[in-house]
Each structure stands twice: as structure tokens, then as C-alpha cells.
């Protein structure tokens, strides 16, 4: 019997030996708060381990020594008010000792003092949108892992499922305030290295803040079940030195000007069917295939198919309208703010001509732009 208990204990300790490349403990993180949280976690873990050793120790002692096969005769006691009071009060005192640092850390976390930078974080199925309050910078941040890696036809990269097309960029040593909200269901923005996890509730704003000490790239994930692709909406935060951050802000502003000019130019361009189809397919796979599926069949009863559908083979204005404005009360989002007119034109063209839909018409950026954008 004894060796069985030992082997059980051995098994409890086994996982650390097998998994060398995964951290087995919580990250201490890169902020003052995350350090405090880590310290608190370790303190409580040690207290629990100590209590565990005492309680299980007493139990194992009696399992070994007070067994009938060894001729143990049962004692007769079954009550002791003194002991009962002792083991009510002692845990109570231990709990108070735990509560003190916990309360301090919590109050430090919920510090509402002025922030240097405010960023609005909006979750939607299944991407994050970041908007810098004091700069006219806003963008979506989507999973960058190719579908081929997920489906296993390509080797998975180092940051599989933890990489995005455009990370959130923050400076070090500044108090950054996040205001979380959501466009559809509840999401939760979590970066373990900052010890920040806050729900993004539709219709309401929630607040969290961080002050990062060390430049680097930090990764997290959505932590609240938000539908089909809940597992595929990572968070990547690039933390730069203050000087680099200023440079980045300038770059973003320039890029925005260039992009605006490109959009303006695209309105007068006419692309060929082939050009639209190539671009459209790329965008479709990145933005639409999660629901409507790469083969355009959708998921019956959940997401409608586009192959031979009334929208994709019907009047083109209705098709543009649903992509531009979305459909109320469904998971179909409005893409007006997410894609340029040029991109919408390409993806609509693709949907109308792929999978044997073969409507034959092309849509140009100008058509989309005229559609009440």
C-alpha cells in the first residue's frame, strides 16, 4: 500500500518532468502589478502547501500506523470543544493574514488616477479593435496564423495562434488606461504579462490599466467564450521605448494619409475581373471564411452559405449593402469600417463569381463608395 501512495505522489509530480518548454507557473509579468500578483499567488500557494502537508501528513501517519492489520485498536474519543474551537480560529487567522496583502494589491490595481494614454479596446466576433483616444489611430487586430497551419497541412509556426496582423503598440513607463467594450457578445481582454484581464461587455465600458517596465512582445488571448472562434482571437502587444513609440505614432499618421489617398484613388480605378478575384479571394479567406467557410457552404443552421445564395446571385446593391452595413441581430458585421471600398468591391466580386456562382459582374470601389459610405 505504501508504495502505491508513493507512486501516486510521483505521478502528481510527473508533469513538470515531461513538459520542459512550457512554464509551469504563473508569469511574474513585466509590470509592478503583475509582480505583486505573482508574489501573492506564491504566498497563498505556499500557505496551502503547508496546510496540506500538515493535514495530509496527519492522515497518512494514521493510515500507516492506525491500521487494523497492524493490530490497532480504535480509541473512543469523538468530541473535543477545545480542538474544534482551535481549528476554527487558526484557519480564520490564516485567512486574515492572506486577506491583508490581497486587499492591498486589489486596491493598487483599482487605482483610478490619471493615465498618460487611453486606448479603447473593442472586442467583436472574433477580432480586437484598438483606438487611441488622443491620436486619430484606430485599427483591427486579427489572427495572423494561416488556415493551413490550423488544419495541419503546414508546419505550425513558433507563435501558432498567438500572432496577429497588427499588434497593439504601447510605450514603456506610461500609465496606459484601457476602456473595454464589445460590439456583440462578451469578450475578455487578457495579457498575462500585465496581469490584466477585463471583460468587454456590449453596451458598457470597463476600465483597466497597466504600466509596462520592459519593452518586448507580449501575447494573450480572449478569455471569455465568445462563440465559434473564441480560441482564435489572440492579443499581441508590442511595447516600445518612449522614443520608438513616438516614431510609431508618426508612422501611423503618415500611413493613414497614404491609405486615405489610396482609397481616394481607387474610386476612379476600374480593375479587371482577374485582379478583383485574386484580391477578393485573399480577403474572403482572411475575413469571411471563418463563418461562410472557404467553400462558401457556410455552416447549416448557423452561418448561411453563399454558394448559390439569394444574396450572392441576386441584385448587386443588396449584396453590397449587407457587406457594408451588416445584418442587424445576426453575426454578420458591418464591414464599412473594417475594409476599404476597394477591398469590399473585390470580396463582393469574388463571392458573386466563385464556387460556380458565376454571376459575371464586377464591382468597383466607386460602386461601394456610392453605397452610403
Amino acid at each position, binding site marked *: 500500500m505504501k508504495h502505491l501512495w508513493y507512486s501516486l505522489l510521483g505521478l502528481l509530480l510527473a508533469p513538470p518532468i515531461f513538459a520542459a518548454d512550457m512554464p509551469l507557473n504563473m508569469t511574474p509579468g513585466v509590470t509592478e502589478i503583475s509582480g505583486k500578483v505573482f508574489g501573492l499567488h506564491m504566498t497563498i500557494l505556499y500557505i496551502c502547501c503547508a496546510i496540506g502537508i500538515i493535514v495530509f501528513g496527519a492522515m497518512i501517519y494514521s493510515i500507516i500506523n492506525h491500521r487494523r492489520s497492524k493490530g490497532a485498536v480504535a480509541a473512543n474519543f469523538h468530541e473535543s470543544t477545545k480542538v474544534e474551537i482551535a481549528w476554527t480560529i487558526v484557519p480564520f487567522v490564516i485567512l486574515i493574514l492572506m486577506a491583508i496583502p490581497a486587499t492591498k494589491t486589489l486596491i493598487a490595481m*483599482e*487605482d*483610478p*488616477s*490619471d*493615465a498618460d494614454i*487611453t486606448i*479603447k479596446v*473593442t472586442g*467583436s466576433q472574433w477580432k480586437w479593435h484598438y483606438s487611441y*483616444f*488622443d491620436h486619430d489611430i484606430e485599427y483591427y487586430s486579427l489572427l495572423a496564423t494561416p488556415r493551413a497551419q490550423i488544419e495541419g497541412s503546414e508546419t505550425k509556426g513558433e507563435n501558432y495562434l498567438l500572432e496577429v496582423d497588427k499588434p497593439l503598440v504601447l510605450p514603456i513607463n506610461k500609465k496606459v488606461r484601457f*476602456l473595454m*467594450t464589445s*460590439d*456583440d457578445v462578451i469578450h475578455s481582454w487578457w495579457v498575462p504579462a500585465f496581469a490584466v484581464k477585463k471583460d468587454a*461587455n*456590449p*453596451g*458598457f*465600458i*470597463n*476600465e483597466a490599466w497597466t504600466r509596462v517596465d520592459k519593452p518586448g512582445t507580449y501575447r494573450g488571448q480572449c478569455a471569455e467564450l465568445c462563440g465559434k472562434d473564441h480560441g482564435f482571437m489572440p492579443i499581441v502587444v508590442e511595447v516600445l521605448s518612449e522614443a520608438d513609440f513616438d516614431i510609431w505614432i508618426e508612422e501611423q499618421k503618415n500611413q493613414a494619409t497614404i491609405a486615405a489617398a489610396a482609397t481616394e484613388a481607387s474610386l476612379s480605378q476600374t480593375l479587371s475581373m482577374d485582379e478583383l478575384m485574386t484580391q477578393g479571394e485573399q480577403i474572403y479567406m482572411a475575413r469571411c471564411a471563418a463563418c461562410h467557410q472557404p467553400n462558401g457552404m457556410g455552416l447549416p443552421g448557423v452561418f448561411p452559405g453563399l454558394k448559390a445564395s439569394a444574396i450572392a446571385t441576386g441584385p448587386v446593391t443588396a449584396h453590397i449593402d449587407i457587406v457594408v*452595413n*451588416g*445584418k*442587424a*441581430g445576426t453575426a454578420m*458585421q*458591418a464591414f464599412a*469600417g473594417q475594409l476599404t471600398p476597394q477591398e469590399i468591391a473585390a470580396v463582393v466580386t469574388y463571392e458573386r463569381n466563385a464556387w460556380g456562382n458565376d454571376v459575371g459582374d464586377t464591382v468597383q470601389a466607386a460602386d461601394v463608395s456610392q453605397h*452610403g*459610405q
Partner: protein
Amino acid sequence: MSRPSATSNRKLIIWLMTGAIGMFGFGFALVPLYDVLCEQLGINGKTQSTASTYKPMTIDTSRVITVEFMANIQQDMPWEFTPEVKRMQVHPGELVRTNFNAKSLALATTVGQAIPSVSPGQGAAYFNKTECFCFNQQLLAAQSSAALPLIFYVDPDLPDTISTLTLSYTLYNITDKGYVGAVEQGAAK
């Protein structure tokens, strides 16, 4: 001989059933209860849904509160909706007026409902609106625009720890939801 205790069973069953039905009702009673608690304690940043009245009060000029305005538009809402100013400094007790600008891009009449939320949530109870477009549904004719007014003051009792209040509006499209009593805004351009 079975009389007394069959009644005692029945009595107990009736009590327990009443308890269960009462708890079913309690579940629903939690809804208004939650709203009251939220408004009183500022849980979840909810603000009161009716206008408060402003009584002339001493303005605490020694304190400056930063008030930030934020607008979220639900994706199916074809409006532009932005605060006139993003950020302003106010003194507690001071009555302040600002606007949110709304512009409908839709080709038909649309009705919106703005839902306010204040952060930090504890500040919500001290953020008093004497007039707000969020108290009513707002109706905009196709392609028209309007300035939606907001008049508010910050209660001088606002805890010292709070120096910034963020007021966020989320604009919902409720055109299809059978609106009643929407206020028509603006004129067609």
C-alpha cells in the same frame, strides 16, 4: 388515524411549494433590484435613466475633473456619431452643456438609442444628467444630421480618488424593434 399527519404533509408541501414559487418570482425581482443597486452604487457604470434636477449649488472651483466623451456605434447602425469635444475640464457642481453630433448615412429613416456607461463605475452615481439625448430614442431622417444635447454636472461629493470620468455612449439601431416615442432630430440636408 391518517388525518393529522396527511395534513402535516400537505402543509409542509404547500410551504415548500410557496417557497419555490416565491424564489421563481425573486429571480425576476432581481431585475429591478439590480437596476436600483447599479444606479445607487454605480455598479457596471450605469447612470440614472431619468433626468436629475439641478439645484444651484456651490461650485467647487478648487477641483478640476477631466470628463472624457466616447462614442461607440454598433456595427449595424448606419450613423456617424461623435462627441463635439473629446475631453473637457469641469468643476464639480458646475452645469455644463455639450453635444454629440449624429449624422445618418442611411437611405431611410433610422432610430437610434444611445446607452450611457460611465467609467470608473464608482463615478457613475456622481455623474448627473439634467438633459440627455439618451433618455429618448432618436430618429433621424435619411441622410440628415443633428446635434444631440447633453447637459450634466458632476456631484461635488465625487470621491477624491477620482479625477477623470469617462462617459461612453453606445449607439444601437432599434429601427426594427418597434420603437415608441422617438424624438425626431435635425432636418434633412
